[in-house]
């Protein structure tokens, strides 16, 4: 069985006196999409940058496909789209991909570039100058750039922040396609609904610590069943849809009159807000 695409253990990072990460453990398996959630300043971008080799860790162990982050071998296997990025405004979409093909040592040629532009639906503007593209188009181009050379690990920091709903749907479809190709993806995002839709696992980070982790359906599991009876509303914490018939039967057996039953699911948003304690950066 292959090892994790990204393995992080006890990762700490201090910027002078400021602690950005206080000891984070996280793994991303091949073909797995992990959503990294957290308020602004929680340390999400720092974690991603450490994995890319852009930021040096203060302590802890990080491995990208078994290699030291920042090593040529590790960089040869990953694709990265930063939250804040800019490409040379004077070159075209196709020229940018060509440049990154050469830097990555990709031998995909024109076919790879055409395929990547098609995936992000920019194939009709391949020769347009980047300076003439909208921010959303540039972000999609950034995704195509990150995919040059068929990386095994994709690190995406807010990849849909500038996209409209259609653009977000394109990216969702792309991420699902990449999962099918066994590409491991770490996705930083503030868009909880998007994370819930596409991610296999979610990690919530706050003040530099990982505070919750699990599959979205585990985290956003059923929270309670509320039953309106003649004597008032009875709340059954932790119960879900499956437990509802039993709860109702027990209440009826106990002589209660049932007027209304509601199953409440805690959404990922609720889990997130509870986990971060309403903190914002």
């Amino acid at each position, binding site marked *: 069985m292959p090892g994790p695409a990204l393995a992080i253990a006890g990762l700490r990072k201090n*910027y002078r006196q400021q602690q950005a990460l206080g000891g984070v453990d996280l793994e991303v398996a091949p073909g797995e999409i992990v959503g990294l959630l957290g308020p602004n300043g929680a340390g999400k971008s720092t974690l991603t*940058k450490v994995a*890319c*080799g*852009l*930021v*040096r860790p203060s302590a802890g162990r990080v491995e990208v496909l078994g290699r030291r982050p920042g090593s*040529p*071998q590790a*960089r*040869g296997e*990953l694709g*990265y*789209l*930063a939250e*804040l*990025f*800019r*490409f*040379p405004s*004077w*070159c075209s979409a196709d020229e940018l991909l060509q*440049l*990154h093909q*050469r*830097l*990555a*040592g990709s*031998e995909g040629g024109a076919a790879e570039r055409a395929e990547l532009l098609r995936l992000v639906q920019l194939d009709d503007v391949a020769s347009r100058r980047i300076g003439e593209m909208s921010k959303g188009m540039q972000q999609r181009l*950034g995704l195509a*750039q990150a995919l040059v050379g068929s990386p095994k690990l994709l690190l995406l920091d807010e990849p849909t922040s500038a996209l409209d709903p259609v653009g977000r749907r394109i990216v969702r479809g792309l991420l699902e396609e990449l999962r099918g190709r066994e590409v491991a993806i770490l996705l930083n995002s503030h868009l909880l609904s998007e994370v819930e839709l596409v991610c296999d696992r979610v990690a919530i980070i706050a003040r530099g610590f990982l505070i919750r982790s699990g599959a979205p359906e585990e985290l956003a599991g059923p929270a309670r069943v509320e039953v309106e009876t003649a004597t008032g509303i009875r709340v059954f914490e932790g119960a879900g849809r499956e437990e509802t018939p039993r709860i109702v039967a027990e209440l009826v057996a106990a002589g209660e009159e049932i007027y209304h039953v509601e199953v409440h699911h805690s959404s990922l948003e609720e889990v997130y807000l509870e986990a971060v304690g309403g903190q914002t950066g």
Partner: protein
Amino acid sequence: MTPSPLRSAAIVIGLSIQEGIRRRVFLAVLVLTVAFLVLYGLGAHFAFKGADAFAEGETKILDPHAFTGATMFGLAMFATLFLGAVLAVFLTLGVVRGDAETGLLQPVVVRPIGRTTLLVARFAGAALLSGAYVILVYLAALGITDAAGGWSPDHLVGPALALALGVAIIAALSLLASIVLSVTAQGIVVFMVFGAGLTAGLLAQIGHAINSDSLHEIGRIASWALPFEGLYAAGLHALISETSGLTGVVLQLGPFGGSEAAGPELVAWAFLYLAAVLSIAAVVFSRRDL
């Protein structure tokens, strides 16, 4: 397959050149250089004409032709160094911290190229372009001076190479500054260092003229601390090193005289200095969080 460092460096150098062409940097430089050369040509023409006039009827203890030619070409050397320095600084402006702050650097750095290769390639691109530029302007000024007054320097190759090495050193210093300073601060610091070097060189000239050991020593130390100035002064010296008599003495004492010859020590030191600046830059860059 991960590209070799040499191939990666060639890609980045090519990118720098392509950027310069596409962003019309070279076009702007070309237009301004042509303007400078036209102005210089007019100046040289009238200077030689005036030189012939002031020599008439005088006892020729001073060769007006050589004096005018060397002074005008010394001025051209100064302007060439200045233009080359401007080009070197602009080609390296904000290439690390500035580009990192705008998000232009990170997509390239995460590629297998490696930070040291990237830095050396950016230096090589800037040094090659600004070095080639100063040599071309030098040759153009040489042709203009010859056409205007039939004068040519005592040594042709040495001063051109000294200028090229000088601007390479300025490019390296500017690159180092780009790692730790913001774009504006980088520009200010590098031009102030450039100005300080030239001022120290002039102090040495004055020290030579008035026979002041202290001033001469200050200039000498500055030439070693900022070798682009030492190379420039040596280049000026080489222009007139074979000019004898009072003309040679007066030229050496003038602002474009150059009192010091470039020994092999200075050239060796300039290369060592360049290597040291680039090594420091590579270490600082490798430790910098982006």
